[in-house]
């Protein structure tokens, strides 16, 4: 297992226990290049690099998803262009550019 994929040094919270032979996928989180694996959800991809996907709108703590089944809506993130994504049910794609805070034109 290399950097970027959940080693403590990379600061992620996800530990890959299986299915590690998949093709690497590069995406960008707040402009920083990160590596995930093909078939990762956006949530898995982000949590492999960092402990939370965004800040809470209503409190000081970060958000990292909760249910992973599309029911809690805790896991929204923003692409640099276009509407926000529910990260637990969106597959990561090569070259995706994601933000952990809303883009500038957001209310």
């Amino acid at each position, binding site marked *: 297992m290399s950097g970027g994929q959940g080693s403590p040094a990379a600061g992620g919270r996800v530990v890959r226990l299986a299915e590690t032979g998949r093709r690497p996928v590069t995406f960008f989180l707040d402009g920083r290049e990160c590596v995930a694996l093909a078939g990762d959800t956006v949530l898995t991809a982000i949590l492999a690099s960092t402990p939370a996907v965004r800040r809470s709108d209503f409190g000081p703590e970060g958000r990292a998803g909760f249910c992973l089944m599309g029911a809690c*809506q805790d896991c929204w993130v923003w692409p640099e262009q276009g509407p926000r994504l529910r990260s637990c049910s969106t597959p990561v794609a090569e070259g995706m550019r994601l933000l952990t805070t809303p883009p500038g034109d957001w209310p």
Partner: protein
Amino acid sequence: MTAPAPPRVVIVGAGPAGIRAAQTLVAAGLAPVVIDEGARAGGQIYRRPPEGFTRPPETLYGPEAPKARDLHAVFDRMVAAGQLHHHPRSSVLAVAGGELHVQSDAGGSRIGYDRLILATGATDRLAPVPGWQNPGVFSLGGVQIALKAQGVALGRRMVLAGSGPLLTLVAAQLLKAGGTVAAVLDTAPLGGQLAAWAGLAARPGLALRGLAMRARLGRLYHAGVSLDRIEADERGPVAIRWRDASGRPRETACDMVGLGWHLRAETHLADLAGCRFAYDETWAQWLPMADRMGRAGNGVYLAGDGLRILGADGAELAGRLAAAACLADLGLPAPDPRADLRRLARLERFARGIARAFPWPADMVRALPDEAVVCRCEGITAGALGDTVEYGGPEANRAKSLGRVGMGRCQGRYCQLAAAELIAARTGDTAARDVGRLRGQAPVRPLLVGAWEKTP
């Protein structure tokens, strides 16, 4: 003269109940529409990883692998043969006027129906623990999905807490996959678990398998605990404070906590479709009403954990029964339901035994400190919720409009039961059922589409 148009039957959910319902309708010559949020049919418990993952069903589903294989194969065959219309990655947002409002990657659409079979399943039933709003606290089901569908553990040193069959199952699965579990904290007292044995004896094999799994957890497993607080820094949990069965304070270091107290039926769509509800004491929640076949009236049928929490085997039976009722009501030849009804009754005895063995932690919730967050979505505390009772009275919907508990983006899925418990506690010896039921509102999932997204 043209033949009358075939009846439009729509199934929502492609878990065990939805798949068996579809199979039954297809066998009778109908071509149902199946709308499902998953990318691949299977539901949550038989959820399939994305294409390209390699672990076999035996690794993913253990002893249930043959059932999972069969359900997946049956569904894929019907899709390949064009016998049904499958809408994957699609959410039903609303039900109105005989139409479903559906949202998918392609945008919004409306799908009309003559008969509607709702097989919407369940989510974890959650009770708040102080500190549960921190990143790195997940539902037990979420922890299991991460392992099954992504091959990952969500922490390096995990604590699983709550109660119910999933608690020991997820712990055993994580250990087997090479994850590090620091403790498994069950709020159900051992005595109560033994007292429920009579019900569990309806399925002795399954009950024994659960006990064997627990035995393998050995010293990690603690029964009869109470949970005091999840300590966290900005990265997430660092420890969980709890008390053992004798009341002794304990602390376990961890970087992830998985929480869940058995299951909560997913009933928002049943509510919008006009189903009536009754409070069920065994499962300690409001459940939609239907006859034994799943008929809820107005052409609506219910099946699976969204009706009664019988688990995957019960969902398969209930799916077949709901479809058989639907066929009979359409005046079409339907399979004889008697054997399935008998099996369903036996599964229900077992499921009620399970629910009694691993009860909702009412006392723990009632004792929550005022500063504990009840609504994770919007950070509303037990104290703030209690204040609404002072001027709004003890009624769930009033507390929602005054205090916003249940208004956040999860729409009450993870706070509603605890909120009812707290409101009841504030008014003396009221029971949670007297607080009433939070009415479902459309859209049952937030709208994703760009045009709405930009609206502040």
